[in-house]
């Protein structure tokens, strides 16, 4: 009885102390906040009125430096679970946020996101006045070049986008398949003349082309400027492609200079190489962060692309709100690169060349593979392992066991077994679609051999 009584007192005492502490901390904490408000958060509000704009010399369009690429829209599993569909709610939310922060350029194509991008873009933009944004779409007549099919595709874009004029219309992916394909798609079938008529009629406000390919094709198509008058050209530009373009692609330095010469505004695609300039090797991430600790790795790529005065807008396919916010922060307003910064990025690019990642930008143009492979999934996993240092150069490597485990387990997680590289039969149907001119079957077989070496623990 005595003991029990004592215990009760103890508990009461304890509660008293606890209450006292709570009161004390309640009074202290707000005090802290007043003193050092900024220490509570590293993220500052993104301004809604600080976006950098560029003016189109042709028609004085005032275009936001950040353009929204509608190629990597967020997906959710379809109701029947058989495939993925566009998450329209998320798209609306992203578009609302982008517009609220000054973005006014939206770039889509009839073939993006399994053909659903234009419709989805329309649903999101329909809620705003037509003169508040610019729509860009493309003539993506890749598989059927006939005049009828091409015109049908052009007209269908108006239906899907629910518009009666298109602000920026592009001949899609010139250079893929060489000059013969270009001629077949646009010249021989008279499509270029048709589009010029459409521009004259005001249904196309700006006519241009997007380019991936070799220099001779670029030169020849650009030479048509005399007769066609390109209102803009969309090129792949980033601090790696500036002087170190991969495959048969042309250095961006050359492309941009040619456009500057002719006073043609440049629209930039792949400023981030599909995330490859954001998801970089640990060494490079550390280097970039060290130079500007409070800026993201991606912001360097956007500042690089945005610093060229002849650039009208820089496209980014932003799937997640965090990507959008990061890019908005970079361009609200743009902090142009100093010559020092540019030199630093050139060094970084050279350093990057030392890591043998495969130049896949996850654009998914190669998909769907008729034999079920998840090509970008395989390449991205391979690159991820390189960037994370899980790529043993030899079976004698110190971290061979750890890297082997990470590679093989991660492989099964990223790509279902039936969609892995060993199922590539080498039919090559993907290759013509790749804007980065990756020899996909060759890479698949190389990765497959590497996986076999790891699985069989062969010496290499």
């Amino acid at each position, binding site marked *: 009885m005595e003991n029990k009584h004592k215990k009760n007192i103890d508990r009461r005492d304890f509660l008293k102390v606890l209450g006292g502490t709570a009161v004390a901390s309640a009074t202290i904490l707000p005090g802290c906040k007043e003193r050092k408000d900024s220490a509570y958060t590293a993220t500052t509000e993104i301004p809604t009125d600080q976006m950098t704009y560029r003016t189109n010399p042709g028609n004085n369009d005032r275009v936001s430096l950040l353009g929204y690429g509608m190629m990597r829209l967020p997906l959710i599993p379809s109701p029947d679970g058989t495939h993925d569909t566009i998450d329209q709610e998320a798209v609306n939310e992203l578009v609302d946020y982008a517009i609220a922060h000054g973005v006014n350029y939206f770039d889509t194509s009839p073939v*993006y*996101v399994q053909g659903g991008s234009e419709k989805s873009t329309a649903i999101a933009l329909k809620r705003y006045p037509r003169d508040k944004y610019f729509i860009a779409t493309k003539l993506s007549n*890749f*598989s*059927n070049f006939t005049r009828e099919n091409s015109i049908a595709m052009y007209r269908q874009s108006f239906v899907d986008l629910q518009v009666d004029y298109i602000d920026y219309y592009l001949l899609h992916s010139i250079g893929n398949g060489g000059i013969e394909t270009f001629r077949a798609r646009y010249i021989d079938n008279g499509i270029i003349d048709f589009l010029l008529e459409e521009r004259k009629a005001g249904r196309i406000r700006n006519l241009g082309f997007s380019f991936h390919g070799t220099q001779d094709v670029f030169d020849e198509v650009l030479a048509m400027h005399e007769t066609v008058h390109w209102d803009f050209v969309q090129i792949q530009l980033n601090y790696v492609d500036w002087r170190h373009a991969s495959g048969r692609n042309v250095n961006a330095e050359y492309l941009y200079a040619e456009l500057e010469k002719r006073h043609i505004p440049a629209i930039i695609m792949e400023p981030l190489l599909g995330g490859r300039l954001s998801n970089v090797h640990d060494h490079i991430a550390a280097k970039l962060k060290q130079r500007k600790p409070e800026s993201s790795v991606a912001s360097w790529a956007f500042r690089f692309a945005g610093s060229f005065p002849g650039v009208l807008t820089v496209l980014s396919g932003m799937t997640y709100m965090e990507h959008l916010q990061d890019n908005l922060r970079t361009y609200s307003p743009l902090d142009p690169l100093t010559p020092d910064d540019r030199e630093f990025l050139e060094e970084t690019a050279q350093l990057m060349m030392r890591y043998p990642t495969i130049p896949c930008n996850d654009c998914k143009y190669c998909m769907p593979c008729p034999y*079920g492979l998840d090509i970008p999934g395989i390449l991205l996993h391979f690159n991820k392992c390189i960037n994370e240092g899980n790529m043993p150069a030899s079976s004698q490597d110190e971290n061979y066991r750890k890297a082997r485990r*990470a590679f093989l387990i991660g492989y099964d997680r990223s790509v279902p077994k039936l969609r892995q590289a060993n199922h590539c*039969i080498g039919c090559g149907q993907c290759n013509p679609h790749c804007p980065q001119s990756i020899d996909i079957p060759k890479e698949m077989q190389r990765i497959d051999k590497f996986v076999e070496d790891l699985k069989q623990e062969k010496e290499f």
Partner: protein
Amino acid sequence: MLRKIRIAAATICFALITLLFLDVTGTLHLWFGWLAKIQFLPAILALNVGIVAFLVILTLLFGRIYCSVICPLGVFQDIVSWLASKRKRNRFRYSAALSWLRYGMLVVFVALLLAGLASWAALIEPYSAYGRIASNLFAPVYRWGNNLFAAIAEHVDSYAFYSAEIWLKSLPTLLIAIATLVIIVVLAWRNGRTYCNTICPVGTVLGLLSRFSLFRPVIDTDKCNGCQSCARNCKASCIDAKNHTIDYSRCVTCMDCIGKCTQHAIHYVPRTRAVHKPNQSLTEAKKEGTTGSRRTFLSLTGLLATTAILHAQEKKVDGGLAVIEDKKIPKRATPITPPGSLSASHFAQHCTACQLCIANCPNQVLRPSGNLMTFMQPEMSYERGYCRPECAKCAEVCPTDAIHLTSLAEKSSIQIGHAVWVKANCVPLTDGVECGNCARHCPTGAIQMVASDADNPSSPKIPAINIERCIGCGACENLCPARPFSAIYVEGHKKHRII
């Protein structure tokens, strides 16, 4: 004390043997694989004289300790019986031996073994019966748990766990495992070790030896006050307390009676004089056959997926994944048995169908046979994976040496079957595309790609199989793009050859 030692040893053995069937990492058997190899029937089938001698001597010295400690099915029954005793104490009573039944079972069992129907004999064999229960019923649960951890590990970017595939390997075997489990649980719940003393052939054989064991529990008639507590707690129902005798052929030396006797009248001591002949009286006892339901074999090829045929379309859109149709099992004239099993007949005679290899096959190649002659014994098929060159897991775990390999090099030189080409499915001919995936993945270089039209070198290339070099591993069949039936598949060989 003796009882506690028995329980501790049994718990460890039981847990480890069970884990052999559940393990997804393939590392456990390196340390504890011997626990499967000291099982009685596997040791006999493996002609492992040392182990058989050890078990015989163990039994002659200490009685049927094997049944109480080493045998997983025995320990499993003890667990069930222990749970039942929580509900109802002192529930056993003495009953006379059903000798005609147990010897009858033994005769049938031996006859089946001699007839080469080891897998049918194995229906009542304790180790493989437990193996089927563990691999068919416990393993999926364990793997789901593992996959949960794998999912968590994936979230935190850890490679500590990876997910394991779970699929129904054979419905008849699953049904037999369920039936065995139900029968064993019911018997153990009601009458303790009924199965061990009336059905189990291993129990009967060891019982013949344990009659003469050196050490055995003996009732001290001077101390006994006739309370019958020992008999009412004897799960083997072998203590005739009235006459102070114990039927040592059925006693599994669990030591429960020693612990229960309040008078300390039972001692585990060496034999000093001849044992009393136990009274034979006819008592009704439960008898149950373990003949589970044997349904017709249902081939399980998974869900039929709709095929997406890519027609030339107006626009080729970006992204998306093509639907992959599941592979179907081709009709093989001769089933494929694992490398190291020598021949179909050798294998049928030596395999107890314990499922240990099937549970441990990391490539989803092995599954229980539905053929009546080789029922539940493993056979190979390649629609989920193929027999990979770096793996000899089945041979490593096999307790009976029905699958025996000395090295990976040996495995890669055993021809277990040969590849056969099916012209109608070959994609260079049907889809007009370049392929050669079979040739690219053949580990022995037995496949070359040759022009389908000998006069036209640029005609589509088709595989030319050199069956002399083919080992039947199934890489070609598994990786063939043709679906649901591959354009190249493996026919088994009745007798394996070294190439």
